[in-house]
Each structure stands twice: as structure tokens, then as C-alpha cells.
């Protein structure tokens, strides 16, 4: 089972690298993050205050991209059906897809988000660990939602609008807790509530991940099984 899991991860990594998806997702995210300050007059606004919104919208939009090729291509050419005929149950295949999507798209984006936060939005340097954890947990959640919506729409004629329509409401709690747990300002005095607030939000975000990980993977597997049986 573990062998199949690792084989699938190796294969999908190879596919992603050959297709050049790694850089396309990353550059899409960077484009979103850099475009926002250009569209707003940076002098009139506190850019740091709106930076969580920009970062999370960028992460949300970019998290939808990798699984399109990873799942859709494999579904179309029958690979998913064949992979389901191995010793590994479909749950393992769904988990492997999830892992590859996160590794190839979200992991580089975490560093891009941190770098742009520091450079473009003047986040405080001491918040780097807190913000890294937040984006890590949040991107795990967003990829999970993307996995479910992609599995549900395999073989559909609904197009991209359907993907965003479905994942938007599902991502709302992640967006709220994620944005609340980013620290964008240095606290003015040490007893300020800003630290406790971000910590609470981070704990809630992590609880959300723990609570939804297994049900969402299970639902994705169910969707995958339906898709394969109706191919």
C-alpha cells in the first residue's frame, strides 16, 4: 500500500515537473499578490492591513490550479481507473493526489507568500514563524477543498465557474480564520490583544484542519469512485 502511494507520488511529481506546472502556479500567485498594490494607491491605504485578504485570495485562487491537470488528465486517459486496480484502495490514491497537489503548488507558495508579505506589505520580522504556520495550515485546508471539488466535477461539462462556485463557500471558514491569524503589525505595546487574537485564530484553523481532513478525504474518495464507475 505504501509502495503504491510512493509510486503514485513519484509519478505525479514527474508529470508536474515535465508539464512545468510548478512555475505556472507559483507565478500566478505572485502575479495576484503584486497586482493588488498596483491597483490601489499605496500612499492612501494601510497596505499591511489589507494584506491578509490579498494573500488569502491569491492562495485560494492558486490552490484550485494544480489538481486540474493532476486529476482531470488521469481521469480522461483512464489512468485513474487503472490505478484503482492495484493493491492500494482508492483512499490512498486520493491522499496521494492531495499530497502531490500540496507539495507542488502550496509548498512553494508558502515561501512566496512570506517573502511578499515581508517585502511588499512590511510584515513584522518577528511574526515570520506565526505567519508561516498559518499559511501552512490554511494551504492544507484550501488544497483539501480543491481536491473535493475537483473529484466531484471529474468529467463534467460545468467548466471552471462551477469549481469556484463550489469551493468559495467551503473555503469561507479557512479564509476567515486564516486572515485573522496573520500578524501584519508589530503590537504597539506588549499587552495588546493582537497576539492572543492571532493565536486563537491559528488554533481554530488547526482544529478545522483536524476536524475536516478525514471526512473530506473520504468524501473525495466517494466522488472519485463515482466518477470512475460512470466513466
Amino acid at each position, binding site marked *: 500500500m505504501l509502495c503504491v502511494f510512493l509510486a503514485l507520488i513519484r509519478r505525479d511529481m514527474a508529470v508536474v515537473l515535465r508539464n512545468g506546472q510548478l512555475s505556472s502556479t507559483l507565478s500566478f500567485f505572485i502575479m495576484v499578490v503584486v497586482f493588488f498594490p498596483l491597483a490601489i494607491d499605496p500612499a492612501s491605504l494601510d497596505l499591511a492591513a489589507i494584506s491578509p485578504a490579498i494573500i488569502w485570495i491569491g492562495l485560494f485562487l492558486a490552490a484550485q490550479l494544480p489538481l486540474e491537470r493532476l486529476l482531470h488528465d488521469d481521469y480522461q486517459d483512464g489512468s485513474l481507473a487503472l490505478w484503482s486496480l492495484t493493491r492500494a484502495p482508492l483512499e490512498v490514491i486520493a491522499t496521494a493526489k492531495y499530497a502531490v497537489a500540496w507539495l507542488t503548488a502550496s509548498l512553494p507558495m508558502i515561501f512566496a507568500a512570506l517573502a511578499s508579505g515581508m517585502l511588499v506589505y512590511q510584515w513584522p520580522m518577528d511574526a515570520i514563524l506565526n505567519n508561516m504556520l498559518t499559511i501552512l495550515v490554511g494551504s492544507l485546508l484550501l488544497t483539501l477543498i480543491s481536491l*473535493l471539488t475537483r473529484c*466531484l*466535477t471529474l*468529467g*463534467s*461539462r*460545468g467548466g471552471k*465557474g*462551477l469549481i469556484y*462556485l*463550489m469551493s*468559495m*463557500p*467551503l473555503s*469561507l*471558514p479557512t479564509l*476567515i*480564520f486564516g486572515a*485573522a491569524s496573520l500578524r501584519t503589525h508589530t503590537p504597539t505595546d506588549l499587552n495588546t490583544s493582537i497576539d492572543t*487574537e492571532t493565536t486563537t485564530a491559528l488554533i*481554530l484553523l488547526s482544529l*478545522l484542519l483536524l476536524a475536516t481532513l478525514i*471526512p*473530506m478525504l473520504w*468524501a473525495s474518495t*466517494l*466522488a472519485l469512485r*463515482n*466518477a470512475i464507475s*460512470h466513466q
Partner: protein
Amino acid sequence: MTMPHTPARKKTASPAASLWHWFTPTYFRAVSGRVTPIALVLLLVTLPTGLAYAFFLSPPDYLQGETVRIMYIHVPSAWLALALYGAIAVASGITLTLKLPMAGHFATAASPVGACFTAIALISGSLWGKPTWGTYWVWDARLTSMLVLFFFYLAHSAMTQAFKQQERGQQAASILAIVGALNLPIIKWSVEWWHTLHQPESISFINPSSHIDISMLIPLGLMTVALFSYATIVITARMKLAILQQKWQSLLYQKTRNRS
């Protein structure tokens, strides 16, 4: 070889068997033939009386004045929007576990109706909010979760239509409906948390059920019954539509088979 599929019929009188029959397209036609006239009569009785109570017979609220009359359309449609989502979630569970075709048809039929009720609740709510709180929209937990519900309804009904095979669309939509039903409490709770974080001064949302007079309860009840009857009529019609669509699909399918 190409015979139309007829579900296994057992002529037993046990209640479980008759319940099963209710859920098959053949028996649905008989049941809907009885349900639709009853709902139509109910609608024709309750809608005029409800409107009469709402506009003529009930007094203006001592606090909100005439604007309380928006409540008689707003609250019933919000109730129905929530109730229909619950019904869709239950039907989705049945679709996934028991694979009764009528449960899938019900979910397909009910989601546009629910979307309409949610839209009405949102529109009338914001029109009620302007004179009451002075703004059309606040990012209040109740409003935001209603908006999210609207998006869920849109996604659900788009999902049922997004596949060549109706069955596959219904199964995918039922997974979405169940995930959505589990997520809605989380969403509402997260928005509440966020709201308390950002806006400590609470907006005085006047809770209609807390101090309700009998003169308001009558139009509210009548309008609820009227909208419920309307929903029954339209859902039954749309279930017929879903059955017909399935028949139409298999008709096309048989054509492709008879070609060679």
C-alpha cells in the same frame, strides 16, 4: 435486450414496501396526482387570506411601523430555504446509501426552489434592514450564512446539470449537499466569531419571534403554509421534469444503440 427497466415490484402490503413504492417513479406519478391538487387548494386558500392579513388586517408594529409587513414574506421564505436544505441533505444521504432514484430527483427538483427562497429572503432582508438598521447589508452571521447557503444552492443545482449522465450528477451533488450541510454550522460559527472580533458594537437585530403578537402570527403562519404549498407544487412538477429528463436521456441512448 433493450427493454425498459422496471423496478422490482412486490405486491405486499407491508408499510416498508409501500414506502419503497413511494420512492419509485411509477408510484410517484400516482402520489403526485393526489398531492398537487391538495397543495393547489391550500395555496389558493392561504395566499389571499395571508395577503389580506399581511396588508389589511394586521396592525403596524409599535417599534418598526409598517416595515414589519416585510417580515411576512421574509421569515417564511428563510424558514423554507433552511428546511429545503435540510430535506435535500436527507435525500442526499438516501441517494448515497439506498440509491433510491426518487431521492436524487427530489434533491434535483428542490435545489432551484430553495435557491429562489434564499434569494427572496436575502432581498427582502436587505430591504427590511435599510429602515431598521440604516443599511442594506451587514456582515452579520445570519446574513452571511444565508448568502453562503445561496451559493451552496447555486453550486448544487449547477452540479446536477453538469454531467451527461443525470445519475452521476445527482450522486456528485448529493456528496456536495452533505459536505455543505456539515459545513454550514462551521461557516455560521466562524462568521459569528469573526463578527464579534471586528464589530464589537452589536447591531440591534430585532428578533421577530421573541415578542410576537397573535395578530402577526396569523399572517406569518398563513404565508408559511402558502409558500410551503407553492414549494410542494413546484417541486413535484420539477421531479416530473427530472423523471422526463431521465427518460429523454435513455431515449437518446437507445437511439445510439439501435444505429448499428
